[in-house]
């Protein structure tokens, strides 16, 4: 059979902790993948490489983008005009065909992102979404009662601030540019990036100035 068939390729992680046999769907995954490789439609090496790409993506990349936007107004303007091009400027490649729209939080507007249909998410800049982003309660409720959803994260947005919920699609993804917290004027770009969390870039929490001993109101 195919070249890689002798003993396949998951040295990077033990397949099972115990002697539990693989489940039905894991067997299906292995079978589909091996059939596609045998038929020459994909290569085993492509799967391995893509796993490495997935492993290389995490919210620190998005945090770098946010911090740069805070310190560099020209970059912020370019990022808001074209999110994908802005990220690529910082060396963050997009491995798919998706476009990225960056949504800026202001004193008047708070942005929240969701994918009601499934789990579309700005993976190139944030990595994989948390499970709750993919589960029904968040997807169902974010678009109809965002303030109640935010309150469950401890986030209370004043009534005079508009909440805008953006529903992601297969081709268009969103990233929230959070407000820079007060009292961070002296922080370096790297220190600023360290304040930016994944959840802040989804829009469910603000960025807190932890160095100042907790976010002032």
């Amino acid at each position, binding site marked *: 059979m195919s070249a890689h068939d002798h003993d396949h390729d998951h040295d990077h992680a033990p397949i099972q902790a115990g002697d539990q046999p693989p489940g039905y769907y894991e067997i299906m995954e292995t079978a589909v993948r091996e059939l596609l490789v045998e038929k020459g*439609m994909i290569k085993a090496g*492509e799967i391995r490489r893509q*796993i490495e790409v*997935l492993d290389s993506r995490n919210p620190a990349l998005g945090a770098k983008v946010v911090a740069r936007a805070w310190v560099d107004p020209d970059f912020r303007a370019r990022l808001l005009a074209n999110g994908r091009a802005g990220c690529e400027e910082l060396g963050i490649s997009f491995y798919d065909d998706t476009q990225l729209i960056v949504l800026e939080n202001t004193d008047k507007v708070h942005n929240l992102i969701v994918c009601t*249909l499934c789990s579309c998410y700005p993976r190139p800049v944030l990595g994989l979404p948390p499970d709750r982003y993919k589960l029904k309660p968040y997807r169902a409720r974010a678009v109809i009662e965002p303030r109640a959803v935010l309150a*469950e994260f401890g986030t209370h947005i004043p009534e005079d601030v508009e909440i805008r919920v953006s529903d992601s699609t*297969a081709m268009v993804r969103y990233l929230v540019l959070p407000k820079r917290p007060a009292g961070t004027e002296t922080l370096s770009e790297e220190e600023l990036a360290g304040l930016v969390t994944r959840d802040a870039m989804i829009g469910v929490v603000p960025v807190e100035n932890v160095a100042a001993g907790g976010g002032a109101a």
Partner: protein
Amino acid sequence: MTDTEAFVKTLPNDIGGLPAGPIQRVEHDLEPWEKRCHALADVLDFHKIINTEEKRRGVEALGSELIGKLTYYERWIVTFANILFQKQLLTPEELARKMDEVAARRSP
């Protein structure tokens, strides 16, 4: 195996705006096979064999009952199999034989 394996229904997965319970603050690290499944999805997209929107519609086509019973990546792999059958790139018999082979390989 389980009753989930027998269903094929079509119901939409468009749940935005429906009532639902509290946000579940759960996280888990992907199992190795789940990560391989995710990488497979991306590679299938790169080769224009199955794109993201086809995958999404394919998950919808599983029907709400099965969607509710399968985990996230279980839905994906079942969907890939269905789409590959529809596109006549794989046959159900080929997959069944390969799954038997894979299962036998791992049980000493």
